[in-house]
């Protein structure tokens, strides 16, 4: 089976996600920060009347938080409901995207390409900086390595981070 991959840049690294998961790419973000939230949650954004939870992908992948937002983009994903038709036609596995719209902060889009499932390789050992649970594998593309992200796993990690943050803060408040 083949799938279409949307590749994007985060720092110098090339990542990819199944394009069927992508709702749109957004610029000019006006983000309202969320007090008390962990750094993974950058804030909330208005996308034509719907609320998008903006996730700092860099933090999720164990890097420094995105400092400069000027030239970043937001990679916005579909919701569970929106991918349902693809799942029903077996174009996508039944994955947990959740009912909320989320977006990843990225540095820019690269190209879109087709790949065969056979072309998916296990992550090389030099990728240790990124937790392997968050990666489906890698694929070679025009001499470059594209890391395929496991989007639900990244979302799950962000969710866990907020739960931990909420747990810690509970006792930390004294006037």
């Amino acid at each position, binding site marked *: 089976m083949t799938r279409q991959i949307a590749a994007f840049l985060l720092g110098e690294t090339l990542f990819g996600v199944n394009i069927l998961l992508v709702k749109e790419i957004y610029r000019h973000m006006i983000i309202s920060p969320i007090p008390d*939230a962990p750094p993974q949650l950058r804030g909330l954004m208005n996308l034509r009347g719907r*609320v998008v939870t903006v996730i700092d992908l860099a933090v999720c992948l164990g890097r420094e938080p995105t400092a400069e937002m000027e030239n970043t983009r937001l990679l916005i994903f579909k919701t569970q409901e929106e991918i349902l038709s693809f799942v029903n036609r077996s174009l996508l596995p039944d994955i947990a995207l*959740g009912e909320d719209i989320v977006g990843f902060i990225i540095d820019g889009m690269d190209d879109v390409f087709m790949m065969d499932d056979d072309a998916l390789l296990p992550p090389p050992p030099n990728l240790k900086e990124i937790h392997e649970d968050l990666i489906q594998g890698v694929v070679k593309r025009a001499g470059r390595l594209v890391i395929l992200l496991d989007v639900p796993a990244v979302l799950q990690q962000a969710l866990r981070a907020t739960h931990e943050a909420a747990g810690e803060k509970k006792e930390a408040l004294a006037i």
Partner: protein
Amino acid sequence: MSDFDELLPAFIEESLQHLQAIEPDLLLLERTGGRAGQGPPDKDTVNRVFRGVHSIKGASGFFGFQNIGRLSHVMENALALLRDGRVALSAPFIDALLQGVDALKTMIEDIAGSEMLDLSQEIAALQRIVAEDPTRGKTVAVARKAPPEGQAPSPAAGPSPADRFEISEADALGFMAEGQHLYAVKIYLSRDLREKAKSPYDFINNMEKIGRFIDSFLDITSVSGLGDCLDNELAFDFLFASRLDAPGVAAALGLPGDRVVEMGMEQLRDHEPATGGEPAAQPLSAPPAERLRQHFQTEEKIRVGVGFLNDLVNLAGELVLGRNQLLQVSMPFVKTTAGLNPVLQHISRVTTEMQEKIMQMRMQPLSLIFDKFQRVVRDLARKHDKEVRLITSGGDVELDKTIIEGLSDPLTHLIRNAVDHGIEPPAERERAGKPRHGTIDLRAHHQGGQVHLSIRDDGRGIDGDFVAAKAMEKGVITQEQAAAMSPRERMRLIFRPGFSTVEKVTDLSGRGVGMDVVMTNIEGLGGTTEIDAAPGQWSAVTLALPLTLAIVSGLLIRARDQAFILPEVDIDELVRVKPDEIARRIDVVQNAWVLRLRETLLPLVDLNRLLGIAGPDDPDADIRKRNQPLRILIIKHGASRFGLLVDAIINTEEIVVKPLPRYLKRLQSFSGVSILGNGKVSLILDVAGIVKKAKIRRLRDLEEREAREAAQRDAVSAETQTLLLFDNNTPERFALPLELISRIEKVAAARIETVKDKRFLQYQGRKLRLVFLEDYLPISRPERSPDDTLGLIVPKQMKHPMGIVFNAVINTVEAEVTLDTASIMAPGLFGSTVLDDRITLLPDMYALFEMAAPEWYATKPVKTADSRRKPRVLLADDTPFFRMVEKEYLTSAGYEVLVAENGAVALEMLEDSEVDAVILDIVMPRMTGWEAIAAIRANERLRHLPVMAVTSLGNEGDLSAMEKGLDAGFDEWELKLEKTRLLDKLAAMIRKKERDRKK
């Protein structure tokens, strides 16, 4: 309104719901079990379909819809065969059933025409299936019973078993073999259903709980004409199988015992068998449904999915948002563009209206849940041998569907509690002098943009002490905590997790939800819970709920550079504390900020710190060091109140509430999100979460305790004062503080001597100058004659002897004087107040004296060394009246006056403010004048301050109090309340201190 009109819509609605569920189940059966070699059909699915059809059959019996009953009966038979594995699932079988479902749907949607539909095809198809049953044949029999001949059927005549029941002999024997009895049960539509607000399905479902409903039949004999059919007692006979005995069945169904008659095989067989497996299609007379044709027209309705509706609600929200943005953007062009404004207004109006209509679609009446409580109460009362009546009102009040759904469980629990724990057994009630039957009053009404729901019972109430004792036993609170609690706080303990006032958990209260869950549920709906009770008399729980969760009126506030929303319903008031008031009004109690609001202390939460956006080394961290005015929202949450300190208040906005993304759900402080008019996403603050996060409850206890202690102390020297009420032989009434009066005399008018325009009285060897009120105040002039006996008030503390003339003393009253200085005001008056329900004027004696004898009493403006600023005096007095009067005196003499309600407040103010002198009352709550002077003299910075006591302690000439005062450190001791002496002494005291300091 007839029984049909009320019950039919519910029947149609519920039947369609059943059919809607049946169809996919049939399809599922076909997919999974219908193909050859795939094993038996799924049992659960078959049972589900069976029950659905069964219910439709039963309910249709109530209305005499024979066609519906007949078809569903045949379908049921076919399904029973499938269920018992007597026929195999086949495609024709499913076809036949689906055809049946379609036909049922057609009939139910056009109920008035249902009897006209030709069902021969559908029934024949199903009959063919049933015919495949190998065990069929000899076993199918129909028992039939005719009404007793010549006996006029009357509704009250007890059971008149049905005209015909159908049951196969095998089934009947099967039931009996299982130990079940067969009963003929008679139901009256009006008495048994409508008056108890039950739908036919409620009744059938209830039956199914205790046994199995087999067949029903409309008792045609009870209907004599159209009028009867619509308005009179329609009766139905049910054949019913149950393991219970006859009285048990009657009790469970809520029917009198004589309506349930056991049917043995003999009774069933007694009558001629039917001609086939199918009931006779020809009724005794035309079926009522047919006669209903013209009468009843189903209102045209479209069924819309809730999901679709929610989309519509969201879109309407977006439209409102777009409208707001449009208005904002186009505002600058309104003046320059002709015709723009009407268009904008039109769009605005239409949008609002459309949004309201769409929101209304989600609104449902509370009667949806109220109705079922009749039944709950009845059953519970019966079970506990209690007599309980439930009265409901406000069932037509509408709330958002989500809220209605969320209310069902907590309300059920509260009702159960009322029956179970609230209402006493009848005998106990009689002993207590109450009516045997208890009453539960369930009410709903609109109040201030919310819906208030109260559940009140006249039972044994709640004993706060008992609750507290139990709470201590269970370790919920400590003894000290209990001792410090107010009665209502003790009652509220039942909302604490893990608390139940009943030792032995009965099956009623032990259903999983305690009062704490009730409270949590209600909070989850954005509501609050209150409890109140009088032991032995009544108890009441009041819930306040928002109308809808989707749109709220919110206050936009700023914390740092971000806007947040606080729902307006949570806000009690807005308070602004000016920089020079901060020191006095903000305090630290037990390491927590508190705000002094009027006479209470409220916990104060700094929003920036709560949200963690303040930063640990924030220069503003110490609220008391801020030099900007503080903006504080007073938040009401249940019984507790607290202050929320915010950076700025922006404005109010109607906001569309969107659910919190799941990533934010664990952050306690927020309840939802919204998109503002400027397009930015803003978080909605959750008051319940803030209370938890800031641990407000503990602060609240503390605050209440303080307030209570203060109240106890205040009780001694309260803000009440004793007033002399008198009149002037005119309709007006007057009052003067007794503390200001030295003596009251009666004098003969003839003794008054006039010198020029002044009048005098020889009094204790002196010439007393007399003041007649009517000469100086805008009041009626009395008739005076030399034969009168007049009253004379001689004030305390007179430098020059003067007296006020009046007619007669009415009374002396103890009262808390709220002085009105606005409605009636004139020179010589302090103002007016209401005493004994009458408007009463309070003359200002010293102002009167000043008017009468300016040469004696004129106020000399004060002078200080520093002529650039006014001398500043701190005045502490607990009585508002005196505080006001003294302040007035001082201000008129050119002083700047700071006021404090007691010594403690005065000392706090002294810490932060420079003053030239202090005036202290002696008897004050919280800190007396004695304590205050000791503290001042002990303080290095304050100890040289000139301090004067102004008190009503001690009498004129009694020097012991004064000596004690001077010993304690007061510079001056003055009795209340003579203006000139007060001012003279104050000025002298300040001058002396100044001289001392210069030396």
